């Protein structure tokens, strides 16, 4: 059976499983060599959510807490494109979004940071890319928050994104950061990406063309998933 496989994970772009400066990673990643697996139907297929029905308001995190009131904080519009390595748009793909509130606190019982919760902000949303691979959502800029990784450790402001793409092997969970944040060079999670160019690909860009007068600042963050190998591949017999 001939199938069209996907490019491998680019390990110069992705962090290692274990990165000493990020303490929690040390005991939670495989130490043995990964076993190579030739892609089969199991890997080139995967869940597609192109026809998912999003509830009204899922792309507006400033108002989706169902309180009828708006979240506190600096409104931002986040746009971008989801592409593969060959620059082809990844259309109709689901993006799941989660983040801290403007004060740097998550709407989650485990988050004990002594910063105010915002009853009008859950910090979760979803969107689906259009046929050009474009997405857009409205939220508030998350705050920085402390964590216990090392003395006086603070995470720079960031927003988490989860994507599926067209197959099981294109799955990606990432997070992006905001330009000019002085905490970024101090952040072990950001620094776990092995190359400078890779780390730069986690940075959103300020986008004045997206900024809306008297309303909100715009940021652009493009996401690149694994591309497809050019020719169908028939495995060894």
């Amino acid at each position, binding site marked *: *059976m001939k*199938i*069209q496989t996907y490019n*491998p994970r*680019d390990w110069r*772009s*992705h*962090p*290692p*499983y274990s990165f000493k400066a*990020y303490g*929690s*990673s040390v*005991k*939670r*990643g*495989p*130490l*043995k060599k*990964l*076993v*190579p*697996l030739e892609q*089969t*139907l*199991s*890997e*080139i*297929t*995967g*869940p597609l959510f192109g026809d998912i029905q999003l509830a009204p308001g899922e792309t507006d995190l400033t108002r989706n807490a169902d309180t009828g009131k708006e979240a506190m904080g600096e409104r931002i519009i986040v746009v971008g494109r989801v592409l*593969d*390595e*060959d*620059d082809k748009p990844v259309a109709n793909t689901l993006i*799941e979004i*989660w983040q801290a509130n403007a004060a740097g606190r998550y*709407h*989650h019982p*485990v988050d004990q940071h002594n910063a105010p919760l915002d009853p009008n902000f859950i*910090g*979760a949303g979803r969107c689906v890319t259009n046929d050009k691979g474009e997405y857009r959502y409205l939220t508030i800029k998350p705050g920085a928050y402390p964590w216990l990784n090392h003395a006086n450790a603070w995470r720079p402001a960031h927003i*988490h994104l989860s994507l599926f793409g067209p*197959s*099981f*092997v294109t799955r*990606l*969970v*990432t997070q992006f950061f905001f330009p000019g944040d002085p905490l970024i060079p101090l952040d072990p*999670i950001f620094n*776990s990406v092995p190359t400078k160019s*890779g780390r730069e*690909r*986690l940075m959103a860009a300020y986008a004045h063309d997206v900024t809306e007068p008297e309303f909100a600042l715009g940021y652009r963050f493009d*996401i*690149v*998933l694994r*591309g497809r190998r050019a020719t169908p591949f*028939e*495995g060894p017999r």
Partner: protein
Amino acid sequence: MRKQTPSQTVGPFYAIGLTRQPMNVMAVDATQGERIRIEGKVFDGDGVAIPDVMVEIWQANSHGRYNHPDDKQEKPLDPTFTGWGRSGTDETYFYSFETIKPGPVPGSGDSAQAPHVNVVVFARGMLVHAYTRIYFDDEKLNDSDPVLRSVKNKARRSTLIAQHGERDGKTVYRFDIRLQGEGETVFFDM
């Protein structure tokens, strides 16, 4: 050529965005196939069960067909079954799925793959997700499965095989995942 966007951890608060609604019940009454539950714990390098872990699975339907346009086999699709599920952990640190036993799907060349479930593991502390597979200990095709056979060490191979059990008359497969250390689960580069 563009470069891949780097992976980052889901962090400790992924439940806000990813598991607020249960997504681990994959089979409904009308779904075709043998009902099974898959459950287990995920352990760190110290052998401690991890609470802030998330497991996703992807599988073929009972006929061995994936609900995806690139699966062009002439086997029936089951409109009630997407083949995808996601589970966080419960208060006893178990992940679980209510699903059906997948049918066999073709492998590379002319080979047949034994029934299996494809698995992705995410956790706080995991900068990159890890891929593994669940096979079933009561499947004869395991002996000829090309992926299982590619794991030469038999002890390691056994980390990919779920153990059959029963509870309240229902089939339960136990599949623990060890992220590192003794009995480390086989993870794939794919």
